[in-house]
């Protein structure tokens, strides 16, 4: 009987959700949300005041100006082209950076930390900000968009690559080392075959993201459909605007669908 009492005591010592710790975490979260609502001026009354304006926007979008549709096809294609080259350049940069930023491959700790730092910097700064920088450096047009996407996507992909490389199965590496293979042979025969499917899947996913990013980049003067978007907004051409939004929507959904199918095939 005494033994049962001990068991009960032992079992009931399991952590409870509504402990002092749990309640204080909830309280802290509540304070953060409340402060953030004040800081960001969250306001239902503003929302309800703005509602008629939004309905007015929607009203003015109708009917869509179908005659404008052929004019957005080329800018849309240009946006996709920006995404294609932005992603491609990103992959080319990200592969060496990814290997150097993988703890199990980096030849020296200093190289590991440097590559990590570079990748983190590329990732921390949004495409739009890089876009603004490159537009002022190389001038208006799609090319600064390519560069902006390349830099930011290289940061993303490089980190993904590094993590994939760090998570490979050690076994084949060990086996190849045991045969006397050198470092490069180990990378080519034991690591690359393991990470290849993930690499390709990341690249396809990143291409999807790049298309969306490229569409927005036009807003800061980096060509493509985004450029048409701001132009029409400034001219209050809402019936054209709706055509642009629909074009972006259809393109992005179409590309998502294709890359998802491709990814499913690879993995």
């Amino acid at each position: 009987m005494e033994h049962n009492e001990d068991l009960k005591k032992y079992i009931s010592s399991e952590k409870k959700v509504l402990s002092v710790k749990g309640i204080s975490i909830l309280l802290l979260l509540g304070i953060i949300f409340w402060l953030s609502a004040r800081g960001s001026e969250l306001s239902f009354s503003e929302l309800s005041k703005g509602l008629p304006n939004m309905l007015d926007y929607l009203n003015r979008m109708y009917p869509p100006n179908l005659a404008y549709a052929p004019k957005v096809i080329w800018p849309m294609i240009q946006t996709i082209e920006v995404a294609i080259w932005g992603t491609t350049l990103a992959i080319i940069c990200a592969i060496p950076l990814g290997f150097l930023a993988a703890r199990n491959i980096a030849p020296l700790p200093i190289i590991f930390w440097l590559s990590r730092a570079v990748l983190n910097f590329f990732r921390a700064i949004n495409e739009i900000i890089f876009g603004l920088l490159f537009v002022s450096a190389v001038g208006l047009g799609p090319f600064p968009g390519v560069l902006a996407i390349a830099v930011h996507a290289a940061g993303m992909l490089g980190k993904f690559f590094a993590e994939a490389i760090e998570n490979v199965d050690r076994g084949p590496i060990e086996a190849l080392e045991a045969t006397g293979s050198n470092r490069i042979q180990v990378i080519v025969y034991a690591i690359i075959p393991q990470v290849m499917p993930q690499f390709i899947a990341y690249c396809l996913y990143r291409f999807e993201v790049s298309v969306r990013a490229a569409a927005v980049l036009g807003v800061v003067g980096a060509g493509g459909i985004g450029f048409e978007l701001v132009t029409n907004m400034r001219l209050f051409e809402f019936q054209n605007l709706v055509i642009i939004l629909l074009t972006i929507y259809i393109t992005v959904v179409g590309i998502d669908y294709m890359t998802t199918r491709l990814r499913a095939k690879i993995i």
Partner: protein
Amino acid sequence: MIRVKSLCKTYPDGTEALKDVTIDIAEGEFVVLLGPSGAGKSTFLRCLNRLVSATSGEIFIYNLSPITGSREDLLKIRQMMGMIFQEFNLVNRLSVLTNVLTGLLSYKGTISSVLNIFSGEEKIAAAQCLERVNLLDKALVRADNLSGGQRQRVGIARALIQKPKILLADEPCSSLDPKSTADILDFLKKINREDNITVICNLHIPELAIKYASRVVGVSKGQVVFDGKPEKLASDILNRIYGFKQPEQSDGT
């Protein structure tokens, strides 16, 4: 000829995997290192080809040292030692043939190997090794399509293509069923006899050690506690290796 003297290995986390191990192994022996999991058997094998660096002690393999020797010495040691593993350690996404060919990488230039260029002779050598382990029909299949026993045979073919003098086998049957276990150990015994390859094999099942070994080395907590013919493996020795309690003396006699 392998000479190991006062070998110690302490891992960075403080685990003392090997404590003062001294063993000589002659050409042609089939040595089974017998002991429970965590006894230090895997560490011992990995010190021989320097997959793990020893903390102190001496190792000589045909007069080359994996501890103090040059890079070239280590390469020669690795080339003359084939190794097979508990989890087979094949590259799953490559073909069986390519997996076998990776056993030759150390003889090839970096550039031709990176470009995946293997000569006709090399491919024929790989095919012959696969024929020996009875897997020639699977040569072009991806390695992850094989069963466990078949994968271990590919592992053996990868070791054989090195034309090794010594074969290290780290728990080669722990992931296999009894039938495949017998096949693999029979095959190791066969290459031990026919090719005069010295085999050093880690096992944790005494019956298998008794059946296949020409010499058993009992390992417990990083130390050698038995070294002799398999016939001499009496139950008190097994108790010492596995840390079983001595049977109680007071049962009725």
